């Protein structure tokens, strides 16, 4: 048989893939299939999958989660572009220190971020003490959507800033010089040359930011279990009401949304994947 060594190689490759495939199938594919089935097996049957749209509670949960994630994404991008471009293009004393403070929070799990928010704007928070000293009234934001917003901002900024700085490094300086030689003002250069060149990085890191915020659990959990975001709702259904079918269905829907957002990000800028928070 003239293809013997090639066949041997193919078999060897299959054998090397086998452990990964078995573990993945046994512990993710199969359980996920069961999750989908459970989602459709409750009292409302397959309609549970539409619950997120039909039932007012879940719909509002979904909407607030989407709005929150979208707002965080927008704010993060604006902040990251300004600070990121500044750090990328200027060298000054203390720059490495600022960079280090930006990368450090990358490894924080959502719980720690929640704690950071509490320390900043919680009942004994730093900001609260300052406003009390200045205005006589403590500003407490932590246990509401505003606190969650700050928390999501906290773990999104490091990620997006680093991506933008990496993209800014690759910008071709010649394009900006050409624009300036044609008379463009700094603002026009930003608007017409820099931002369009950064667009792929902005879209992909924005999509990752959106997906991470949609699926984030730890932060909201730490701040209060009553905040109305979808992951908390799902958690509540599962643990408090033992509403397995609904929890399953809602988490599948959430999973689809985050997966779509990340697929969009990857299709625009190659493979970069968020670690959930």
């Amino acid at each position, binding site marked *: 048989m003239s293809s013997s060594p090639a066949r041997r190689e193919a078999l060897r490759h299959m054998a090397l893939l086998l452990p990964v495939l078995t573990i993945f199938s046994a512990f993710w594919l199969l359980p996920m299939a069961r999750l989908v089935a459970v989602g459709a097996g409750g009292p409302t049957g397959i309609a549970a999958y539409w619950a997120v749209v039909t039932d007012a509670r879940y719909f509002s949960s979904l909407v607030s989660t989407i709005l929150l994630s979208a707002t965080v994404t927008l704010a993060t991008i604006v902040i990251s572009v300004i*600070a990121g471009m500044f750090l990328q293009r*200027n060298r000054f004393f203390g720059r490495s220190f600022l960079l280090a403070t930006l990368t450090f*929070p990358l490894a924080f799990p959502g*719980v720690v971020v929640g704690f950071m928010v509490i320390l900043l704007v919680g009942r004994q928070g730093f900001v609260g003490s300052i406003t009390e000293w200045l205005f006589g009234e403590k500003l407490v934001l932590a246990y509401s959507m505003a606190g969650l917003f700050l928390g999501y901002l906290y773990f999104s900024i490091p990620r997006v800033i680093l991506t933008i700085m990496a993209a800014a490094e690759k910008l071709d300086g010649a394009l900006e010089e050409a624009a300036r030689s044609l008379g463009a003002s*700094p603002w026009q250069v930003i608007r017409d040359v820099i931002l369009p060149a950064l667009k792929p990085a902005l879209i992909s890191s924005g999509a990752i930011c959106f*997906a991470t915020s949609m699926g984030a659990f730890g932060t909201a959990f*730490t701040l209060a279990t009553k905040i109305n975001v979808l992951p908390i709702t799902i958690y509540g259904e599962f643990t408090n009401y033992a509403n397995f079918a609904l929890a399953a269905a809602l988490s599948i829907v959430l999973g689809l949304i985050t997966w779509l957002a990340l697929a969009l990000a990857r299709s625009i800028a190659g493979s970069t994947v968020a670690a959930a928070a």
Partner: protein
Amino acid sequence: MSRSPRFYLQLAFTVLVCAFLVVPVVLSIMAGVTENFFIGIKSGLTLRWVVEVWSLYSKTIFLSIGIALATLAVTLLIGVPAAYVLARRQNRYTRWMEELLVLPVAVPGLATALALILLYGQFRGFRISWSFILVGHVLFTLPFMVRSVLAVMGAIDLKTLEDAAASLGASFTQRFFHVILPNCRQGILAGALMVVTLSMGEFNITWMLHTPLTMTLPVGLADSYASMRLEIGSAYTIIFFIMIIPLLVAMQWMSEPPNVRARARKKQHG
């Protein structure tokens, strides 16, 4: 060199952003070593909170380390060979496989955890053992190991190196251990750091899968934030920082361009 007002404006903005990130970290460190947070530093510095955290939560710290190392071992054993096959065979199926492996990260940890509980929760022994958590961590960190090794394998001309070793008579096992693995060292190391860091900090999946007897560090943190006083939560967070910082520094050092490190090496050898 005089700077424009725009420079200072941007500098102020950036400093503000960094302050937003750093101030709570500083606060938590202070809170963890102060007698009483509300009184502040005037109440004196102490390590009693750290000691108390240790007496309450030392098991969680050991468990987190243990699970992180176990996760590393598993991802190395199954992930490196998988990366090799994905690097050698670049076709439609291998691309699907890469996409597939990424799913547990793309999908909220909550969903993965729910799925595991629904299917395997009935096996009591499995459900209450730390291996249940291990499974979740492996699923979550595997794509990072595979991607890291794959990146390095893609950069070296893997096929030609293998052909050269084969032309000299080396069998597959010999090629794999003599030539392929040594030349992927950097990817394996970077992947390992990533896996350990992610496993130590993993919460979303672990929270759903844990039992009172199998609590990891992040789970313990959530517990302490909810039920203990601020100083204890802060001291616990300090311990977490201490464990995470070396890993982050190592990762930062690894991602430096190789010629910077090579130059440093050459300087050493003179």
